[in-house]
């Protein structure tokens, strides 16, 4: 089980912040970068072609023509490129034709100061987050932590301690006897540790039976817990064919869970998004901040997408359909359980995180809840039915008011309308 320890991520975050604080650009270029990110990145990338051409080196390429200098040309072009083309500007029309005559949006709303910032930015390019050596090390040596190992460590330590006590008491006795022999004193009887313990128990019956009682209790508890744990895969975190980072998508980019898992609204399954959903964004977003192109490239390989030509490489120019992405299912309910996402998400208005944990903070998804029947039932006992604005519940609410009117502190929880019944989930 892999986890980035919270400390290391904290370190990373700290380093990242420091880095941003310590680096500085010309004031206008930094402002320009903001404008760039807000307005241009939908169609332009710095170092590769998207819908529009790559912007790297644009200041070298531009032939200013009638606009005097490069800056002038760029400002005029960004403000209203159609006008530039209409004026018969040679370079403008050349670019226009080279990019399949896709007209660029006019950015007339940018002020001259903003344009100046933007052009200044185009000279220097986007700021690269140089990796802080300490932070990098922290990431590289992900602290591998195993929650189970804690318990084992304790058990081993206890075991070793017991062994040491046994050995030392034996050694102690031998030494004493050796000393006594030397000094001619009477030898201690040759009782071993176990015999001594037995004698002690004989003489302290009350105390030892109390200790024994608790010992049995503890063992029973451990055994019971172990049995209950069979088939429970909490914290199950399998490795996925594509290292899809939920923390980036759902956390940093704040993409709604149900954008990709859209069938959670309509179906019993939340649905693993199909690759065409990924491509809604990843036609444009071709590389990430963590593993660069490698993971996104896997997606492209599955579906046969060429990010450079922006085309599918199949004969019919469509997405491949002869490959499968074998995601490993993290949340496995047994087949004899019927669980419906839409009931919980749409009707019950339960947040995804209630059962799945803070997925927006998980790089790799792990099973957050136990997914045991007890866990289901507890929630049904505690959760109040969400009546508000749902006419379906009008009658049952009226009925229930009558039925339970004598009960004080009555809470209309799910179990009151049959939420604990077998055939709600098993059929």
């Amino acid at each position, binding site marked *: 089980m892999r986890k980035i320890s919270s400390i290391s991520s904290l370190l990373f975050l700290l380093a990242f912040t420091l880095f941003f604080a310590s680096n500085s650009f010309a004031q206008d270029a930094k402002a320009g970068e903001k404008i760039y990110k807000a307005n241009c990145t939908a169609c332009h990338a710095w170092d590769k072609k998207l819908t529009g051409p790559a912007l790297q080196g644009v200041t070298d390429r531009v032939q200013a023509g009638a606009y005097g200098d490069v800056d002038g040309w760029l400002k005029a072009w960004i403000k209203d490129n159609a006008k530039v083309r209409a004026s018969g500007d040679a370079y403008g029309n050349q670019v226009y034709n080279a990019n399949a005559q896709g007209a660029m949006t006019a950015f007339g709303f940018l002020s001259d100061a903003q344009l100046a910032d933007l052009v200044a930015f185009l000279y220097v390019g986007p700021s690269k987050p140089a990796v802080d050596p300490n932070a990098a090390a922290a990431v590289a040596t992900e602290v591998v932590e195993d929650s189970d190992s804690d318990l084992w460590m304790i058990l081993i330590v206890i075991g070793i301690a017991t062994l040491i006590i046994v050995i030392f008491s034996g050694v102690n006795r031998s030494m004493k006897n050796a000393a006594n022999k030397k000094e001619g004193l009477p030898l201690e009887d040759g009782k071993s540790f176990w015999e001594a313990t037995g004698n002690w128990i004989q003489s302290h019956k009350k105390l030892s039976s109390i200790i024994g009682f608790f010992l049995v209790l503890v063992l029973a508890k451990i055994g019971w817990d172990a049995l209950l744990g069979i088939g429970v895969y909490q914290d199950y975190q399998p490795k996925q064919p594509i290292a899809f980072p939920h923390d980036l998508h759902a956390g940093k980019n704040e993409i709604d869970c149900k954008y990709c898992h859209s069938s959670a609204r309509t179906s019993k399954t939340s*649905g693993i998004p199909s690759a065409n959903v990924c491509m809604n964004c990843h036609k444009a977003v071709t590389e990430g901040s963590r593993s660069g192109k490698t993971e996104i490239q896997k997606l492209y390989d599955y579906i046969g997408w060429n990010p450079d030509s922006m085309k599918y490489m199949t004969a019919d120019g469509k997405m491949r359909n002869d490959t499968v992405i074998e995601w490993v*299912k993290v949340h*496995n309910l047994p087949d*004899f359980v*019927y669980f419906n996402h839409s009931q919980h998400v749409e*009707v019950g208005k339960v947040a995804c995180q209630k059962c799945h944990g803070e997925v927006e903070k998980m790089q790799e998804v792990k099973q957050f809840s136990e997914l045991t029947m007890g866990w289901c039932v507890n929630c049904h006992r505690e959760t109040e039915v969400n009546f508000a604005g749902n006419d379906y519940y009008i009658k049952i609410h009226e009925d229930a008011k009558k*039925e339970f009117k004598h009960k004080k502190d009555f809470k209309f929880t799910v179990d009151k*309308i049959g939420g604990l019944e077998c055939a709600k989930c*098993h059929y």
Partner: protein
Amino acid sequence: MTETKKYWKGLEELTAAPQFVEQSQKEFAEHVPVDKFLSDSEATESKTHRRDFLKYLGFSVTAASLAACESPVTKAIPYLNKPEEITPGVANYYASTYFDGYDFAGVVVKTREGRPIHIKGNKHSLITGGAVNARVNSSVLELYDAKRGKAPAKKSAGAWKKGMEWSTVDKEISTQLASVSAANGKIVLLTGTLMSPSSEKAIAEFAAKFPGTEHVVYDSISSSGILKANSMMFGKSAVPAYHFDKAKVIVSLGADFLAGWLNSNQYAAQYGITRKPDGEWMSKHFQFETKMSLTGSNADVRATVKPSEQGIAAAYLLKAVGGSISVPAGLSADVKKKLDKAAAELKAAKGSSLVVAGSNNSGVQLLVNAINEQLGNYGSTLDIQNALNIRKGSDSDYSALVAKMAAGSVGAIIIAGVNPVYSSPAKIGKGGDFKSALAKVKVKIYLGDRLDETGAECDYICPDNHYLESWNDYNPAKGHYNIAQPAINKLFSTRQWQESILSWSGNSTSFRDYIQNNWSSEGLVSGAAAWNEAVQHGVYVGNAAPAVVVDDKAKVATPKTDEVDAAMATVAVGSVTSADLNKFASEFKTSSSWEIELYVKAGMGDGRHALNPWLQELPDPITKVTWDNYATMHPEDVKELFDIKGEGYEGFNELYLGEKYPAKVIKISANGTEIEVPVYPLPGQARKTVSLALGYGRSITSGIAREEWSGGMYKEGALIGVNAFPLISNEFEYSNAVTITATTATYPLATTQTHHTMMGRKIVNETTLAKFHKDGDKAKEEGGYNEQELLTDTYGKKRKPEELDLWEDQGVGLGHRWGMVIDLSTCIGCGACATACQSENNIPVVGKDEVRRSREMHWIRIDRYFSSTVNKEKVTELDQLNSIAEYHTAEVPDEEPQVVFQPVMCQHCNHAPCETVCPVAATTHSQEGLNQMAYNRCIGTRYCANNCPFKVRRFNWFQYDSLNLTQYPDFNKINPAHDDLGRMVLNPDVVVRSRGVIEKCSMCVQRIQHGKLEAKKAGHAVEDGSIETACAEACPTHAIQFGDLNDTNSYVSKASKEPRSYTMLDEVGVKPNVYYQTKVRNIEA
């Protein structure tokens, strides 16, 4: 009333055969089959000692728990490019049409993740109005039949070369057809009835490419007699549109119009509407027939006639309603009396009555036409101008074709959609059999779906698609069009036969485009939007049609019929004179010899469903026999034939059919053919007749039937049942004079009629229309037809059962309380509910052997009770005797016993006896009135089944769905869930139960949950009718209705309070949520 009725499921119950009484005391007929559990024969012989056994046990328990700790890795594989309309976990529904040349129905196909899993009726279809029979709703299983043809095949040098490429086959066939055509040879296209405008156009295109092509239409179950009679009388070779829903008096001369005669789907729905006693009028139904048919069992008045007497009966009836005809002699006084009565009723209901006949003799049909004409029914209850195109096959064309083939004058034959080698009589017309005639044809191409009887005799097999993989269009009646659209991509390398024909004509258009182009050029539907709408609804109604009746609920009893041409033409008798009629009538002669009637079973049709295990295991509505056909015979005839001594009932005990009591076997010979079949003694059969079902003995069933299914009667290559088609007369009449001889052989039949018996308790209730009207709201009071049984309390006071209760009330008032109301008046017993339930709830098929051990798994069974009259004095005397064994002294079984059908499923008792005895609380009660079953809790004590007064609980004796074929070899041939393909039909919302657990009707809880969820998501209350159980949805007559009993506006809550409603075993106080409505017969007393 001076007499009362006694209900019995079979002769053995009537006579209280000792074997039956013993059997009926047990919930489970058999001991636990330990040897089967072990199944491995070596295991039973092993010498494992007790101590070793305990060691193994200990080890395996430990191993099992350790194995359980192993984390399973489950893969989740999404679509790469998800089709827009598919959401995993959400069902899609597609309108389509079922027509196989025999059954016609508009259907809706339920698909999950792109695979069809359930078929229900399409309520948009004005012809069938949402009615589908068992054959149609089971057809989804045949899609996943791994034995279908998977690729084209060619016979060369007597051996089949399978798995060929279509292009190769196309090239070869085109060349061969061209050479036949070039030599002025004749090419024949032999199909069933098509009623598909585009298919006919494709055939015309083929004929244009290959001059000299002839299209011959042949129906395996022919209605040529009707076509011929109408052609003689009206100059129209057509089946008229029948309007049973408008007929106040129905007289059927041997027509089983509820189970197999013409468009029975449509007629069943129409008939159901007229059988409600609370409407303005209730139809009165007379049936004169040979075998107790499904239709006959629903009749108010029934009489038996031999097949040869049907024509005489028709002539008699014509005379009685005022026609001029001389009636040949030969009817019994009883039949005459009933015919007179029928005639009187018919005359009283002139213009709103209907007479139909099942015979394929055009003379009989002509007489029936004359009767309807005499009664002025043309233009009201039947309509020849707006014909139904369901049968077009001509027997004379077919006979002529076979003669030509035998003479060697046919160069090439292409056979599509029919299986003539199997379904032809032993001698056709004046010629020989089809098979030897076929051998004389040089080029033989079979466009059927597999290598079957006909395929085996051909040179090429170009496998056809399943209808769920095909496009088609149908024109069932004037102005009415249906579309069949595929619900799944082709599973194998098959091609629908129309595309094959087109491709040989040099047209590579897909049939979908071909239909669309044709519709557009015919001016039916043009433009993508109109076409899409037609495909979406599955139906298109022409401009001449009246407004579509949208409200479908039969609760409102809206007839859904062919009403395109409202002004129905009345046609005078044309060229047919009474002299002609006399001539026909004079040919009808009764005979004293044995006669056979060949009929079609509600489950099997013409045999094309032989490999459908759901239909094979569906008990026949009347005999309750599964997996076989058999000769039905009057019990007294059986006694005579087998020389069974014993007075009256004593003799019947020898006719008991049970696990250890096999049926007797007779030899039937006719047409130079001899077959041996088991005998089923059936009350209500005409004397000196036997009836045998068609559609059995298909060669493709070889290897499914097992050794022990036959009780030693099978030799090499056993089939399911016996093929009766060779016994059809050479003039295609489905009756024949035969010789019957008794044999000493025996044959085990798997009948469910005495399984799960109610042990003589009164559970069905019936009355007459007169008493129903007389009693009105007082039905439940003393002396009423629905009198409630009162209990006597400690103080001697009579109390209603609900007042005396041991248990606290369940929370029945909170939220929903699901329930059903089943109208015994409109239930026709067809069994469509049973197969719909099987499809919806993943019910396993267990096979004949297990059915014989009372281990069938159906959640819904249709109890069929015969009833006969008991006289009052005897009964009073017998009340003190209090024993079913004594009942038989009191009454005489009528020659024509009456029949009541009662669908029984879990009654979802509010005070369920099963729940209190479960030691592990596996069966519990829900707030919504459902009796729930948690399979994973069940440990298989079967206490619940023993405590159920309705005998509706089923135990999984084996792992019926196992993929482990070596462990359960017995089930893998019959159970669809046994191979990866067959499993595709399983409903993913319902768990497949494993061995050792009890299961039973859940009231389709998955549908209830789904319906509630949809209502919650939409934010409104559950609308009545928005949730339907599979059985209620499938019921063609809407006899089963489902709804919320707590919703005061729902149909079920209103109907359950009607005086006609009652619950079974009310006096026991279990408070079922399933209500029944008393059956009302339209008779005087």
